[in-house]
């Protein structure tokens, strides 16, 4: 027995903490008591800044509130607390800051609906002029404020390579004003302006745009998509973006229980399914080239994602399968092929 066990009792309890590289219960969770503190996520720390604190008025299970705290806490840590946020109009602004109350615990400016990128550019210029190089600037907004009305300012910020990290919280619609369609709303989804009527109920196929791709086309230093379903990946991306100067863009998939017609506890589950179906490709690009993708871990058919959301309920009425489910699956398959989201079996 003795000679077969050369390892035995060479480690003390303290060593056990770091000895193995493989942590059964730490690879995907927020924290892990067995890894050293510098390997832990920002969110697992008692000292996280809670840049977006309690008492805000977001709905139960709001993915945007969660995504914003994930992202801004990470940026705060990366900037050593020297961070200014500029916020476009939208849910994130309204639920956090119904004047005179605010849930933000950092210097925070409300711009207009469409000009957050331009205002942030201005803040960054002001800091440069004042010689405050250590102060970093983020701009943030919803998908409406980013992909639609804000695109012109955003493109200018990209093209000039202004030193701003722009974060888009994509909940696939104008949620703050009552769930209208945006150019980030997926096909077939029901919104207030794409009702379940006529021969193409819900949002029509063949419309919309991908701002991450538009950002990549600007060849800016850093572009990434992320999700509230993968905190570690999200934090790594924000951290990386913060290590770079110049124009950076991160778009985070943030499910909206109210707008999507989903149970409040499903928020992270839905975001996870969006990744695992290929519906929402998660990737990174630098200077115009895709540099990494987040692979699908356990692939699932798109129906599993759609069925949990009332905005797609009309696809599952009656007993025959709506042909548009296949078209949505084809979209997922195209993403999988384009980004190489599956490892070869």
């Amino acid at each position, binding site marked *: 027995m003795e000679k077969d066990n050369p390892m035995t*009792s060479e480690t003390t*309890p303290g060593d056990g903490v770091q000895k193995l590289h493989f942590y059964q219960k730490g690879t995907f969770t927020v924290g892990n008591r067995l890894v050293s503190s510098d390997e832990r996520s920002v969110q697992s720390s008692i000292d996280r800044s809670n840049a977006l604190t309690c008492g805000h008025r977001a709905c139960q299970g709001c993915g945007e509130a969660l995504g914003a705290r994930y992202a801004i806490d990470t940026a705060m840590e990366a900037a050593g607390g020297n961070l200014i946020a500029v916020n476009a109009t939208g849910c994130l602004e309204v639920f956090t800051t119904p004047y005179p109350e605010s849930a933000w615990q950092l210097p925070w400016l409300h711009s207009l609906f469409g000009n957050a990128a331009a205002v942030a550019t201005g803040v960054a210029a002001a800091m440069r002029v004042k010689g405050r190089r250590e102060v970093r600037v983020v701009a943030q907004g919803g998908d409406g404020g980013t992909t639609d009305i804000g695109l012109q300012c955003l493109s200018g910020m990209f093209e000039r390579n202004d030193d701003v990290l722009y974060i888009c919280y994509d909940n696939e619609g104008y949620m703050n004003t009552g769930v209208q369609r945006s150019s980030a709303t997926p096909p077939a989804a029901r919104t207030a302006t794409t009702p379940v009527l006529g021969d193409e109920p819900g949002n029509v196929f063949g419309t919309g745009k991908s701002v991450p791709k538009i950002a990549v086309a600007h060849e800016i230093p850093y572009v990434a998509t992320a999700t509230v379903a993968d905190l570690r990946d999200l934090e790594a991306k924000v951290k990386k973006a913060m290590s770079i100067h110049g124009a950076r863009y991160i778009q985070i998939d943030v499910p909206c229980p109210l707008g999507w017609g989903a149970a409040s506890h499903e928020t992270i589950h839905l975001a996870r399914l969006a990744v695992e179906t290929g519906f929402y490709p998660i990737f990174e690009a630098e200077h115009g080239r895709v540099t990494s993708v987040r692979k699908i871990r356990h692939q699932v058919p798109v129906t599993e994602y759609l069925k949990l959301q009332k905005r797609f309920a009309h696809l599952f009425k009656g007993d025959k399968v709506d042909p548009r489910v296949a078209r949505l699956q084809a979209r997922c398959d195209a993403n999988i092929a384009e980004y190489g989201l599956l490892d070869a079996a």
Partner: protein
Amino acid sequence: MEHPYAITLDVGTSLANHTGSWRTKRPVYVDRLPPCNAACPAGENIQAWLFRAESGDYEAAWRKLTENNPLPAIMGRVCYHPCQGACNRGEVDEAVGINSVERFLGDEALKQGWGFDKPETESGKRVLIVGAGPSGLSAAYHLRRLGHQVTIKEAGPLPGGMMRFGIPKYRLPREIIDGEVKRITDMGVAIEYGVKVDDIAETMREGRFDAAFLAVGAHIAKRAYIPAGAAARVLDAVSVLHSMEDGEKPMLGRRVVVYGGGNTALDVARTAKRLGAEEAVIVYRRTRDKMPAHDFELEEALQEGVLVKWLSTIRNVEEGEITVERMELDASGFPQPTGEIETLATDSVVLALGQDVDLSLLDNVPGLEIDKGVVKVGPNMMTGAPGIFAGGDMVPSERTVTVAVGHGKKAARHIDAWLRGETYEPAEKHELASFDKLNTWYYDDAPRTIQPVLADVRRTSTFEEVVGGLDETNALYEARRCLSCGNCFECDNCYGVCPDNSVIKLGPGNRFKFNYDYCKGCGVCAAECPCGAIQMVPEAI
């Protein structure tokens, strides 16, 4: 405060806004019962000791384990580990190798010399235990921990019961038994060897014992009527295995037939092989799937060259040969004779047909009830005679070491209460942490560590231990495969995923608490808790 133009209100924090009032359901932290714990006949808190082992604190793990079972090094070798059959990880990839980690901890304890504390206070009560098998030893340990004076009277020369005189040493080396028993005697438990109790009432009176726990096991080999010639060599399994331990090795010959299909039959056949038999054939009247022995035991025997004649009964034994009849299973699965006969050459026949209990020590006890050859006990392990408790193989049970150990513990708790004129009420069981309570997304894929197996050649010629142990790296790895079903392992998920920042982290070892002032009751924490340690309960509205 002076306000700027057009501003009328002071700015303030959102903390003034108690969003907790929106809630219709509240999350609460719970501890659910892990399926392994629920399945353990010895009532071990497996999840809890694995949790400690995961951080490399093996001594804490071992201490947690031995709160319920004082024999982990033995257990880690001979337990049939029903815990692993119930393990939720089995539905993810493969069950956690609980048994192998238990063995690692047990061996580590022996190597490091970890011992048990003596009780802090003495109750002054005297308890008699009859039999130093696993059940008696377990009861002794638990009673001693509770402060009672314990004396074990044992008929044999050494402790362990069937663990020593039944289970062969290639499965359970004797120094392991000695080491684990010594820890119990070091606590102040007295064992008197070579003392056969033949009148329990008398022995109790004489020794002024306040209570007794009987654990005499089942040692009388069952016989079946088989016509045998005068020169035929027919032995029984229990005596064969027993004689392996006290001196004279049994003479079995070159060709040995073993009759029966339980673990005892396999142990005898494997022992015969090790004693030099060229052929060891098990004759069993039913099929492999009906065999009471475990499949892995059969597999190990087959690997060592043991042969099995399925669907066969022995009709007749003569010198040098037996007559065997082929059987057929009927519709209800019972073997029926076919009349097809064949002969097999053999030097000896060993009967392994089960054991009966020697109940003679109970002859003068009023109130005692015997049913089908075993002693009846109540849910508190007490026989019909007040103050006399019993457990292990002599009471209705599955007859395993683990069950025997569990009986010993249970009896000890009831005896302790009984001695104080009270009744012992076990704590209410938590709700089961069934697989549907888990969110397995958060666990990484990881196959089970396979224990090294002695090279086949070595194991048929020697009595060296067959199955090897884990070393520290793979024991740690194996422990970390545990999903921690139903019990918080401080992964920080709830703390991270709350959109309302309403989970308060209390720091290492102290878990978390909810801030109900702001928790809106969305349920994301409960949905994303990997191990099912959060429950959503409706608010009283």
